[in-house]
Structures are given as C-alpha cells and as structure tokens.
C-alpha cells in the first residue's frame, strides 16, 4: 500500500472510532424511522415522504460529519503532536493532505452506504406491496450526487483547516455550503447585473461550489429520471472542484510553518 493509502486508512479508522460519528449515523437511521411514522399519518404520499426525508437526512448528517471531522483533520494532528511523528517519517506533506482527504471521503462513503440501506429499508416498508419500483433506482443517483457533495465539502474543510482554526474552518465551510446550495440563483443574479458588478458577481458565482446541481432529491422523489449528461458533468465537476481545493490545501500546507 502506498503512503497515501496508509494515511487514508488511518484517517478512516480514526473516524470510525469516533463516537460522534456513530451517534450521527444512529440519528440518521432514527430519522428514517420517523419518516415511516410521518408516512403512515399522511395520505398517499408515504413513499414521497420517505424519499424526501430520508435523502435529506442522509445529506444533512453527512454534511455535518464532513464539516466537523474535516476541519479537525490537520489541527487535531498538530494539537496531539502526531503530525510531527508522521512527517518525520518518509511522508511528504502533500501525501498527508491527499491521504487525509481520501480517508474522510471514504468514511463518508461508508456512512452514506449504511444510511442508504436505512432509506431503502424504510421505502420497502411503506411500499404496498413490499416491492421496489423501477424508478427507485434513481434514488441511487441522488445518493451518488450526495456523496459528490461530501467529497467537495471534505476538500473545502481540508483547504480551510490548512490555514485557519477549526472554528473558522467550520464557519467558512458551512457558509460555502449554504451559498453553494443557491449557486444557480447566484449565477442568475450575476447575469442580471451590469458593468463591474456583473464581472465580480460572475467571478464569485463561478468560484463558489455548485451544490444546487447536485441536489436532485425533489426530482427522484417524484420518480423523475436523471439525464446521463447530468451524471457525467456533475461527476467531472466534483472531481475538478475537489482537485482545485486539494491543490490549494497542498500549496498552503507545503509552506506552513509547523514549529
């Protein structure tokens, strides 16, 4: 296994050992259970409620995990002095950053996998007869997009944690998550403005992460298909944007004085 791989696996192990993580997963599963109750007291929208509430829970809890673990990835290692042990070995700083990113992304992928099982189980429970429909496959696409959201968030949390305190990193990452959720509106506003404002707004609109295109919960809840183009572009975009943020983190971390 490469050095990046070892760091990633260790990051994953550390995250899994974290009790907060277990609590959040348990809470997400509880929320999916709540969806069933809501579904039972509604009329004819049981499946809709389960998909909407389940996927929203997966997304929100994953976002919380991504932010709160992501911001501590570097600072925790510095506080515990374990970073010096790692870097005194033949491990390059960029390998440390990339390994941490892959480890956290992996953690979130596993998390989402278990939460997704909860969502599908709830869906099966409320369906009459207890059987999946072909349109339910689109839920997997929505889950994939949610994972892409987490990947972008992990990279941003890591970028901010490479130069600021955990609290600042949390604020910055959460702010970008909120702004990014309205990214399409932001670009619409930019198109409506004129002159210098238009240039500045367009620049800002393209720099913030585009989370709105990654949110297809409403669409899949209604069994609407997702185009292959959207899946391809969203995947490529998430890779490009995360790469950009990780490169930023590497550049900053390479120059950071750790004494």
């Amino acid at each position, binding site marked *: 296994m490469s050095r990046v791989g070892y760091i990633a696996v260790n990051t994953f192990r550390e995250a899994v050992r974290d009790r907060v993580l277990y609590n959040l997963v348990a809470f997400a599963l509880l929320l999916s259970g709540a969806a069933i109750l809501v579904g039972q007291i509604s009329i004819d929208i049981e499946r809709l409620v389960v998909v909407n509430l389940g996927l929203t829970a997966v997304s929100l809890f994953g976002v919380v995990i991504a932010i709160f673990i992501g911001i501590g990835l570097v600072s925790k290692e510095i506080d515990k002095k374990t970073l010096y042990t790692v870097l005194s070995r033949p491990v390059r700083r960029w390998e440390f950053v990339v390994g941490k990113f892959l480890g956290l992304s992996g953690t979130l992928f596993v998390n989402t996998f278990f939460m997704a099982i909860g969502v599908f189980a709830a869906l099966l429970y409320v369906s009459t007869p207890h059987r999946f429909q072909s349109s339910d496959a689109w839920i997997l696409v929505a889950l994939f997009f949610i994972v892409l959201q987490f990947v972008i968030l992990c990279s941003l949390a890591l970028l901010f944690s490479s130069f600021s305190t955990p609290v600042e990193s949390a604020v910055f990452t959460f702010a970008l998550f909120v702004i990014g959720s309205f990214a399409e509106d932001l670009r619409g506003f930019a198109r409506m403005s004129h002159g210098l404002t238009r240039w500045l707004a367009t620049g800002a609109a393209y720099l913030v992460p585009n989370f*709105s295109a990654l949110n297809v919960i409403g669409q899949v809840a209604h069994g609407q298909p997702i185009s292959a183009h959207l899946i391809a572009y969203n995947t490529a975009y998430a890779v490009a944007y995360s790469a950009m943020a990780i490169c930023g983190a590497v550049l900053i971390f*390479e120059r950071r004085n750790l004494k």
Partner: protein
Amino acid sequence: MTITGSRKVTVTASILLLVSLASSVLLLQRLDQLRSHATLEEVLYLTSPKWIKRLSLGYDGLMADIYWTRAVQYFGGHHSQGIEEFKLLDPLLEITTALDPKLTAAYEFGANFLAPKPPNGAGQPDKAVALVEYGVRNNPDNWRLYYNLGFIYYFDLKDYTRAAEAFERGSKTPNAHPFLRILAAQMAQHAGEIQMARMLWQTAYASTKDEQIQKNATTHLRALQVDEDVTELEKIVARYQELTGLLPSSFNALIGAGMLRGVPVDPRGKPYKLLPDGRIELRNPDDFPFVEKGLPPGYVAPRPKLD
C-alpha cells in the same frame, strides 16, 4: 539546474489548480446549459407555499427575495424570447408573497406582469386581481395596491365600477395620494374615455420614482396622444369633405382652408401621413407601442423591448 522536491510539488499543484479551476468553470457552463430552468423546476415539485414557508426554517424573508428574483428572471426571460406562455409566473408570485406578505414590489410589479395581454404580459388579469387583493389584505394601508387594483380593473378587465370602488377604497387609506379621490369621482362620468386613461397614466408617472414605470407610463401617454390626434385629424378631414365634397389631397389643403395651423406631428415630432382615402397614419408606428389608431392595415407591432 535541479528542482527541489518541494518546488516540484508547488509547480505541479499550481498547474493542477489552474487546470481544475478552468475545468470546473467550463463544466459549470455546460451544467447551466443542461439545467437552464433548474431554479424554476422546484416550483413544479413544491407547489405549496405553506410547505416552502415551513422548509425555509424561518428565513422567510430571504427565501421570498430569492423567489421574487426568480419570478422576475422567469418573466424577463420569457418576455425577451417572445414566449407567450407564463405557466410558472403565478405560482412563483404566490410563493413569494406567501413567504413575505409585506413584499409590496411583488404585488405591484407582479400584477403588471400578470395582467396585460401577451406579449406585454401573461394575460391573466384575474390572477393579477387575486394577487393584489391578497396584498391589500396583508397591507391594508398601502394606497398603491388599491391603485394597482383599480388599474387592472380599468385597463385589463374594463370593469369600471370595480375600478372606481378600488380607487375609492384606496383614497380612504392614511397618506393616500390625493389623486385617488379624483380618479374615483371621475370614473363615474368619464370611464372609457381617453381623458380618464390619460389621468391614470399621469398618476402612474407622478406617483413613482421607478424609471421603468415612468418610462412605461410615458409610452402609454404618447400612445394616448396619438389616438387622440388621429381621432381629431380624421374628424377635421371629414368636416373638410362635408364642406368641399372632396377629400383633402394633403395637409396643406386643410391649412389653406383654415382648419389646421400647420402640418400635424406625432409626439416624437414626425409628421402624420394623410392618405388619399382620408385616413391618418403614423409615419413610424414602431415608435408607438400600445397605439390603437393611425396604424397601417394589417400592421403587426414588434415585440416590446425590455431594458
């Protein structure tokens, strides 16, 4: 010259950063093309304003601003592309005003988007009335809403009694524009006349600081002037024919007969045309959207421009 390991990482990361930045911008542009109406699509899934209000977690004001901007973009986009169907306009306005019932701009401008016939609006005056009535219920002291209501009743629904009622109700609000009382009083006698329409547009111009509304009012006032001029000139031509038994060959004939003091010009200073059959026509009808008289037979007005 050898490059140190750290420098190699810096150069590689910098290049990769720039490449990924450029790629993400390009991909976003493709995504925007793919999802050109994405921000509006959620209206199709979440149609209940009450649900959206709950989901906004108390940030109603901000959400209302976002929905209002979406409504403006939707109307502006459709209008500039010449699309005459505005299916999502009413739901967008309904959501906006449910989220923030005090957002008076949404009632005033929203009604102006909804009420006029296409291509100037969505041609849904009943929905415009419902929107403004909702605004009145939530902002009973805002005289401008009553004025808007009267305006829709007068111009779009031609219901002069209700228009008079709306102006009357508005005139009783605190700080009401004094013109409302006059409009309500004049309505009984002069409903349907050019003078009444002129008075309404003059009030629209005088009671706002918004340049777009003032521009729109000016365009309508010019159109009314043309309608009035053409009506008057055709009456003069008819009188000339009665006196001489002939149609005038040009405006000079009318000037010579002492019926006109000079060649009549339109509000933009261009002379009117006197046709051999006695009709009066505008030299350039494209300059005057909304005119009803003085147009060549079969004339189709160009699509109004949005500034």
